[in-house]
């Protein structure tokens, strides 16, 4: 897929919680096709501490209006700068980057997102739903403030389960502790997950144990995003692979130490 570097216009910066926000961006030209799981490398201007771009998943796409959305969590200097951006300013993106989630064998799947890790799962839910797959989503966060945009997921998912560490929303505990996993046999043909490393590894163990196919979207540190620097590698059964080009989506069976 051809990659682009373009200045997008900021149409809206919707602040959902004090930490989570959605940037709605308009492409100056016709938006190319974007696959679920792909991301953009975002240039953070006007900041001496953010020399490198920041990888951010593509949260949603509207081809009619040539717009896309990014769901971002404020965790450091770069994301804080992005949080401050206002309507009318521009944002430079290199996109669409990376591979994408693959289609499931069966027709019922589970998406497991942790915090801002939900970002790449929305497009996936949309795609799978449009293909007639029954999609369930399980979203976890530390508190209710980390559970955002549940309505969006509800549009494409049959059910949206929620866990929070403190029990402020949904079931209390971690995603892997959700009661849905209590069932001896799970009839999901595939689990897709994105979130903190520890969470994805726990899900991977669970999927392995239950014998369910599982893909995860890694958030390795990146310098270039286009396969040029070899900084973002992950160990796979076929040796080191780049997360930015050969990922970010990997089947856990290919990742060393994951299944």
């Amino acid at each position: 897929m051809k990659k682009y570097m373009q200045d997008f216009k900021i149409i809206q910066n919707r602040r959902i919680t004090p930490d989570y926000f959605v940037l709605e961006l308009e492409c100056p030209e016709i938006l190319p096709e974007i696959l679920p799981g792909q991301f953009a490398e975002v240039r953070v201007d006007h900041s001496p501490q953010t020399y490198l771009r920041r990888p951010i998943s593509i949260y949603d796409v509207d081809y009619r209006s040539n717009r896309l959305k990014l769901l971002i969590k404020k965790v450091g200097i770069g994301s804080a700068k992005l949080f401050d951006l206002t309507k009318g300013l521009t944002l430079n993106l290199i996109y669409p980057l990376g591979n994408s989630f693959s289609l499931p064998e069966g027709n019922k799947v589970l998406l497991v997102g942790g915090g801002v890790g939900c970002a790449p799962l929305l497009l996936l839910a949309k795609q799978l739903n449009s293909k007639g797959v029954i999609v369930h989503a399980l979203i976890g966060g530390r508190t209710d403030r980390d559970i955002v945009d549940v309505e969006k997921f509800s549009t494409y998912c049959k059910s949206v389960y929620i866990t929070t560490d403190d029990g402020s929303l949904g079931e209390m505990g971690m995603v892997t502790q959700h009661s849905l996993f209590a069932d001896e046999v799970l009839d999901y043909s595939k689990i897709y997950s994105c979130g903190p490393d520890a969470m994805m590894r726990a899900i991977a163990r669970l999927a392995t144990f239950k014998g369910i196919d599982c893909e995860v979207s890694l958030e390795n540190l990146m310098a270039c995003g286009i396969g040029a620097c070899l900084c973002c590698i992950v160990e796979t059964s076929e040796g080191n692979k780049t997360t930015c080009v050969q990922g970010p989506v990997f089947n856990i069976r290919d990742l060393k130490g994951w299944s």
Partner: protein
Amino acid sequence: MRDLSVDIHKLHLKNPVMSASGTFGYGPEFEDFFDVNKLGGILTKACTSKNRDGNRYPRMAETPMGMLNSVGLQNKGVDYFIEAIYPRIKSYDTHIIVNVSDSTIEGYVEVAEKLLPLDKIGGIELNISCPNVKEGGMAFGTSCPMAAAVTKAVRRVYPKTLIVKLSPNVTSIEEIALAVEGEGADSVSLINTLLGMAIDAEKRRPLLSTITGGLSGPAIKPIALRMVWQVAKTVKIPVIGMGGISNATDAIEFLLAGATAVQVGTANFIDPSVCSGIIDGIETYLERHNFNSVTEIIGALRT
């Protein structure tokens, strides 16, 4: 139209702007962003005698106006390069220079010998300055006898253009440059990365799996420029300058300091089309200042 061409020994470059090793893949990665044939040359990622996995993740950390990396020469080895990569890039209408690394002199020699028959490869860049490998690497570039020895050994088997890439982690880079010039290097390129370190204060851990790594980007430009100036005054062979170049003005500063050509590294990550803009910017500069050829500004610093 100004004449942007320069000569690095037997290589006639259409312009003095090349991409730096390890920051440009092998070229294809950048084709979506500009016509890479526009470049004066492409330096490939390091090529070693055997397959290398490089260092463990994490391999990079951001620093003020720069970055640390400890990739550590990850590549599939020279045979794979010849079989799988060379065919894909040999039709480029620009010079391809292979960055050659290894842990032993024999390794360097082996890679050079295997690359010699490749028509499209007009020269190699001996990387004696990689700070991110346990054996060899920077050790070759920080001692005059070792730098001389590896240059001599490769020179014996490699008659095409031989560039030696110098380490900045030394007391006197001029001495190393003289040592490799003395053994027949056709050109020196500098600088490789400066050895640095970054720490996560909250976790009380190093940010790199290797603890230390190589610093690159605009932060190091003043040091690189100084070294290029020192070396260009000292050796007779052409100098290729790099370190933090991010725009045409930066590139021109290196040319003024005495570099015959430049390489652009980390800046490719921020703007993958940056080299194209640098080439255009150099031409604009020549026009504005009424120079007919880029060679007129090489070493033209008025001190």
